[in-house]
């Protein structure tokens, strides 16, 4: 489809990738106050609101970087939906009492909801991968760390004093092991239904 469906606000996604200070500043002027206001109205404070904002922007960066995020709806509503969801999740985690949400009824288009959902699933998966990575044995963790930081598998082999063939094989097995851990987790089964 090329860039036909791309929204003009894709410039904000590009700004995150390029660390474009002018546009980042614009995000903070135009879109962040609304989020802060919403969180303050819903049992949060300024500092926590800014944590949410930062996490969400970094998630968007990660998704854009690895999955080539193409925005087809306004950044404003996409970003707001993500922050809202993140905040509500945090509220659920920290308070066991029921929380009342002060909601202004805003209409959300299907496209906006779908884009926000996709990023949400992406960030949930990232967290799941991290959690499962911690469950790997130390040998696997070490090998994977080297595999993705050193320039080549030859270097990894040298560093760990094993043969190249063994390093390669071990790497694929460790990722395979991680794949199994992820696929058999409850969280993954849940995410699949989204």
């Amino acid at each position: 489809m090329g860039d036909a469906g791309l929204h003009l606000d894709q410039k904000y996604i590009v700004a995150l990738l390029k660390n474009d200070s002018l546009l980042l500043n614009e995000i903070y002027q135009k879109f962040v106050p609304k989020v802060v206001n919403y969180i303050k109205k819903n049992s949060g404070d300024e500092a926590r609101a800014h944590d949410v904002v930062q996490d969400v922007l970094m998630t968007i960066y990660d998704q854009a970087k690895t999955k080539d995020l193409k925005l087809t709806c306004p950044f404003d509503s996409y970003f707001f939906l993500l922050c809202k969801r993140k905040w509500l999740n945090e509220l659920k985690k920290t308070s066991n009492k029921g929380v009342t949400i002060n909601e202004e009824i805003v209409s959300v288009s299907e496209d906006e909801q779908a884009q926000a959902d996709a990023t949400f699933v992406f960030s949930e998966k990232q967290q799941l991968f991290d959690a499962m990575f911690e469950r790997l044995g130390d040998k696997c963790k070490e090998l994977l760390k080297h595999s993705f930081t050193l320039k080549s598998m030859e270097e990894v082999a040298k560093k760990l004093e094993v043969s190249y063939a063994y390093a390669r094989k071990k790497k694929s097995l460790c990722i395979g092991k991680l794949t199994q851990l992820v696929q058999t987790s409850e969280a993954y089964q849940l995410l699949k239904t989204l």
Partner: protein
Amino acid sequence: MMNEEEKYELFDSYLQKELSEQDRLNFESQLAADANLREELEVFTAITGHLEGKLAIDPQRQALLDSLTSLSQQAQEQKETKVIRFKPWKFAVAASIVLLAGVFVFNQFSNPSYNDFYEPQTISLVERGDTDENLIAAEKAFNAKDYEEALRNFDKVLVTEEGNTEIQFYKGIALLELDKFQEAEALFEVISKGNSIFKHQAQWQWALSKLKQKDYEACKKLLQDIPADAEVYEKAQKLLRKL
């Protein structure tokens, strides 16, 4: 059937694009026939991508994180000095409506008028827990378009909060509504030369004040000074084109 080890090595070689043409085609036909295998490869690929992003050192990511941290700090410091309780999206909504209306009007008349660009605003100055009666009264009057009453209350608020740019800004708008141009412009001038978040909004309102007085040249000059990164820039350009 291949065993687990072979399978993951195959996945890895496939992702590294190291398979021979024949092996690749074989593997892809296996994938086409086996949904479970497809799903597993998908997860394997996603994890590989995630580890690349996560474990590899990404200086760009760190740089972005630094930028965001400093922007957050700035935003919070500004709040503390109580300069801003600004709700830009309200302007954005109002602006888009007015722009539509504006475009419609321009198609029929050649000279832009203040009313084409004037945006009747509702403000929300009072935050939960605020008990300042004058502030509450000011907001109420302003939103009811009773600008005389709003003005009286703004002045009372400003007695205790002299440096509150937000109040000054809305006082300016109230003055402009009442055609008290000199006083309004004096306020807009001060704010537009300051460093608050209302800087460009004030410049815009100042220009509107000139427009209302049909001083098109002065209006133009003020609009030209609104920089491209200002949120009122598009409106300003639109008006400029009509002048």
